[in-house]
């Protein structure tokens, strides 16, 4: 084999080995590297109570209620299979809307009640002018 081809072969071999290692490592990391728990993960594998976790999903439409004290919000985070009630006291980001994505940082106080200490809004991959969105994507603004 010519030296040039030998080097080409070696580098391709090294690249394949590296790629394999990374794919293995990344799929192994899959659960650890996830940024948040989805409600169905919680159903499958509930995190310990009083452990700091992030819960992410969609804010169920019509579920956001402001309590009488004026600063506490109650809403439901859901995905296709499960829904979890969340309580949060504080100021939410602008993009926190019903029907939109949300990531709540906090703790489960009981297996069916999450208390958030911080709320992050998750934006999806759709970008469009308001007139385009029309009624199709209209989401409730939380005032």
């Amino acid at each position, binding site marked *: 084999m010519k030296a040039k081809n030998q080097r080409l072969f070696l580098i391709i071999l090294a690249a394949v080995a590296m790629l394999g290692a990374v794919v293995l490592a990344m799929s192994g990391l899959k659960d650890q590297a996830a940024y948040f728990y989805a409600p169905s993960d919680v159903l499958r594998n509930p995190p310990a109570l009083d452990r700091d976790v992030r819960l992410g999903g969609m804010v169920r439409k019509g579920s956001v209620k402001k309590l009488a004290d004026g600063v506490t919000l109650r809403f439901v985070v859901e995905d296709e299979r499960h829904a979890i009630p969340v309580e949060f006291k504080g100021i939410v980001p602008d993009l926190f809307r019903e029907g939109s994505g949300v990531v709540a940082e906090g703790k489960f106080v009981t297996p069916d009640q999450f208390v958030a200490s911080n709320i992050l*809004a998750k*934006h999806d991959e759709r*970008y*469009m002018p308001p007139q385009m*969105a029309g009624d199709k994507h209209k989401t409730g603004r939380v005032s």
Partner: protein
Amino acid sequence: MHAYANPARFLKIARPLTGLLGLVGGTMLILCVAYGVLFGPADYLQGETVRIMYIHVPAAWLGMAGWSGIAVASAMQLIWRHPLAGVAGRACALPGAVFAAICLATGSIWGRPTWGTWWEWDGRLTSMLVLFFLYLAYMALSRAEREADGETSGEGRMTAIFGLIGAINLPIIHYSVLWWRTLHQGQSISVMKGSSIDASMLWPLLGAAVGASLLFGAIVLMRMRAELADTKLEMRMRRLAAL
């Protein structure tokens, strides 16, 4: 490619190409970003903050394209010993790092009003930060290796190997939003599925990306010419010193 191995022949083409790419790319970038920022539509959810996308997305693409360039150049250097490959790889590092930094900074500024946080350690943000650090490491390594080789005017083989290994981060950045749940939104533009960005925002965005790419090409050529001139100067000095 070996036709351009001769620096004289390369320079003959690179010299006029630098200005052409810089001029066309710069004009395109400025026009498209200005259009997007001043006249483009606001987003139905994000409102005006969407406009930062016209800088953020091209910067992210070029941050990654820069390392792709390093990887290709490194492979050409290691396999075919192309004499200009090392020069090209090193020339990609600084502009790549700058674009990666712009991507991180604009993303952070966008994240504060949109997500409600400046920074979160999610898969996409973390892997992009790693890319930025890889650029810094690459630049430090190439400088150190050049200094260590000194007289022998080494080929920078360690740097090239590092350039190849670092490329492993590119698929991780790209697939981070697919493999893991991240705060960062999923991909909006895909070859297979088209775009979930409305056409009124997509076209200025693509224009800005093409413009920034041409500008990137101009910067790389400029830096390659500078390094070749440096080497030439050094050789001449050495010859003079030997007299």
